[in-house]
């Protein structure tokens, strides 16, 4: 199915969990935060939360800033 990931259309397997997406992106274990349709999905729910077609997903991390 198609989702929008950090602004880009991306193909993920149907019903994939956020954790599955994170693994697919090779971000396993990295310090990231995930937002689906502008709602935070806590790390504790990454396994259980299944993505739906068209979900707008943001995966963010910390960078240098003033």
């Amino acid at each position, binding site marked *: 199915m198609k989702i929008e990931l950090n602004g*880009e259309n991306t193909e993920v397997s149907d019903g994939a969990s956020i954790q599955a997406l994170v693994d697919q992106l090779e*971000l396993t274990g990295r*310090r990231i*935060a995930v*937002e689906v349709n*502008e709602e*935070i999905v806590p790390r504790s729910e990454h396994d259980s939360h299944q993505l739906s077609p068209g979900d707008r997903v943001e995966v963010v*991390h910390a960078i*240098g800033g*003033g």
Partner: protein
Amino acid sequence: MTNENPQDTPLTIDGTTYHSRLLVGTGKYASWEQAREAIETSGAEMVTMAVRRTNLGQNPDEPSLLDIVSPEQYTLLPNTAGCYNARDAVRTCKLARELLDGHNLVKLEVLGDEKTLYPDVTETLKAAEQLIDDGFRVMVYTNDDPLIALRLERMGCVAVMPLGAPIGSGLGIQNRYNIRTIVENASVPVLVDAGVGTASDASVAMELGCDGVLMNTAIAEAREPVRMARAMGKAIEAGRDAYLAGRMPKKAYASASSPLDGTFFQ
């Protein structure tokens, strides 16, 4: 009876005590290594960070900010830099809180224009209210209007951070009168955020009675950032001590430092 080594009460923000009154940013450095060394040399205990999209497909082994500046060693202060409305700022803070495992201390800045990077005061007030309602502890970037600063404090912000001059300008504190007035009125910590260009600018901020200074460009864009970081750490301490020590009064005329009696010449 004098005191060989007079102490200062440490800076307390939202219940946490800090020995350094210098807060530093983590942007604009030539390398992670330079950033790490400059921050360590500065003695800062609070460092700001930004939240951005993960670069997908990047080399997964490349270190990220949190590897360099560990949340175990430093108090990380996520900022909302780049946000031009309350909604984006609030969303950024929520992502930061998730990213930092529930850490709820944030630096709120809602900008109004790219030329001055001045805050949008009304959006800042709006965002501060929403964040405080949502349980965030808000350190807020604002202009140097004493009344706006007071209002943000009364809303429940844990620190007010007036600009000394535009972000990244290095012009030094433009309006000492306003900064002093903000300090006189405040019962939460006042930190000058933005505008410092060199060490004496930081000392001036502290001599005006500020509780601390937050800076980034002045260190990162010095010719030798690590040395400037050290300079800033000392300048903050010097300015704080000078404020507490109570400077001599200025005099319109000269006053001799050596006694005039006992001279053997006429």
